[in-house]
């Protein structure tokens, strides 16, 4: 489910996912989403006379939650579990102020008041992204988010990168496209696991989708996790997925001024790959100007000139990935989990003596 973006809510499909179903909210909006049944719950409704009652769910994994419930055709509930979804309350029906979220009610007094929120509009997505990043760091995984316009050669670049690296490190790939699983199939042909996410009308991947992809792909510790975002130079810039670096790909068959036209993306990225450089002799593209434009938007950008089809310049890119993988491994050895594992290991050695 696309949690933040309004552009295509409800059409996300993750390959092989459980099933899809449709909710109708009290305000008339409809959303469809797919979900798995790891956390199934069942509940019985007893016939409360007043239309409002609260009851408790017992999840399959032992968690439980209770909630108030009005019976005017819709129902409201909140799951106390991450990866959750929330249903907005029905506006009609009775309100139980003692049991409900207001907790108390003073008759005759106006309840109009200001409530401070002070929250970032993208905070929900950022929360999911932070969880993904924590998981990556904890397990020494190096994650990259590849962004570009459609047709810049992202998938070809990925295939070549995988071929050059797959003997040294475990790799898995998340492919984002509006429709088709063509790209995931191209990646699978190289022998590494790939998962296709179809965003439907959506224009970008978000942190929530990538969280599900991680669950599904189960990346190995100290591996490389590559995310190919939807081909779009606008929206993916704002949505953190939990990656360590955004890698923007610009091909020489595009315009040199693309970084100026779409500055958000080139500012959000740390790396720019100038792809299809083998075609430079046949084009009027000024590679130096393109680099200068990109650095104007983002002075810290690292640029690699490559040709994914011919292999020129790929070694510098591969070396950069390798050093990123090493840095993640180094970081992992300092995490709490790693220290705990060491304590366990040392205690085992002590017990053996």
């Amino acid at each position, binding site marked *: 489910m696309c949690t933040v973006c309004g552009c295509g809510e409800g059409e996300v499909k993750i390959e092989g996912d459980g099933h899809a179903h449709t909710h109708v909210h009290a305000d008339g909006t409809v959303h469809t989403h797919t979900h798995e049944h790891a956390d199934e719950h069942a509940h019985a409704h007893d016939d409360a006379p007043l239309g409002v009652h609260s009851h408790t769910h017992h999840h399959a994994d032992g968690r439980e939650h209770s909630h108030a419930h009005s019976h005017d055709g819709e129902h409201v509930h909140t799951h106390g579990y991450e990866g959750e979804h929330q249903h907005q309350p029905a506006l009609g029906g009775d309100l139980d102020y003692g049991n409900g979220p*207001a907790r108390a009610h003073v008759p005759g007094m106006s309840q109009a008041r200001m409530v401070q929120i002070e929250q970032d*509009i993208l905070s929900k997505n950022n929360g999911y992204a932070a969880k993904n990043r924590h998981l990556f760091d904890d397990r020494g995984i190096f994650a990259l988010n590849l962004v570009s316009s459609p047709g810049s050669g992202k998938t070809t670049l990925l295939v070549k990168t995988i071929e050059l690296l797959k003997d040294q490190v475990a790799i898995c790939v998340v492919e984002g496209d509006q429709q088709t699983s063509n790209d995931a199939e191209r990646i699978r042909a190289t022998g590494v696991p790939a998962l296709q996410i179809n965003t439907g009308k959506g224009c970008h991947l978000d942190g929530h989708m990538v969280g599900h992809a991680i669950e599904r792909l189960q990346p190995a510790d100290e591996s490389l996790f590559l995310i190919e975002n939807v081909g779009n130079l606008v929206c993916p810039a*704002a949505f953190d997925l939990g990656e360590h670096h955004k890698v923007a790909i610009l091909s020489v068959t595009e315009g040199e001024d693309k970084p100026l036209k779409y500055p958000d993306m080139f500012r959000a990225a740390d790396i720019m790959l100038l792809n299809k450089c083998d075609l430079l002799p046949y084009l009027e593209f000024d590679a130096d100007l393109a680099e200068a434009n990109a650095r104007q938007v983002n*002075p810290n950008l690292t640029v690699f000139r490559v040709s994914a089809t011919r292999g020129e310049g790929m070694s510098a890119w591969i070396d950069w990935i390798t050093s990123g993988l090493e840095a993640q491994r180094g970081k992992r050895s300092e995490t709490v989990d790693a220290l705990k594992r060491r304590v366990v290991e040392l205690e085992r050695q002590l017990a053996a003596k």
Partner: protein
Amino acid sequence: MHEMSLAEGVLQLVEDTAQREGAQRVKLVVLEIGQLSSVEPEALRFCFEAVTHGGIAHGAALEIVAVPGSGWCMPCAATVPMTESFGACPQCGSYQVQPTGGTEMRVKEIEIE
């Protein structure tokens, strides 16, 4: 950028808060939008009206507080005003300016009853 997505994000925060506070109606929503955040306030206004239609925030007034952009210019070693996120320093013309203010997109507060 994608103001519809952002309006949905605003609505989610507003509805979550209104539900938590037991509100029956949301009268006012105050946003802080930085000048460097690539958000078009007028487009956001339009989308906000569309997404709040029929819900608890239906008809709520939207107040957008513009936060001026500022950045740290490395050659000048000073904080300078900025009007665009990839713009040059108004003092020295360098593009080595790191935005430090005006990139926020926040829901500041809401008025409920």
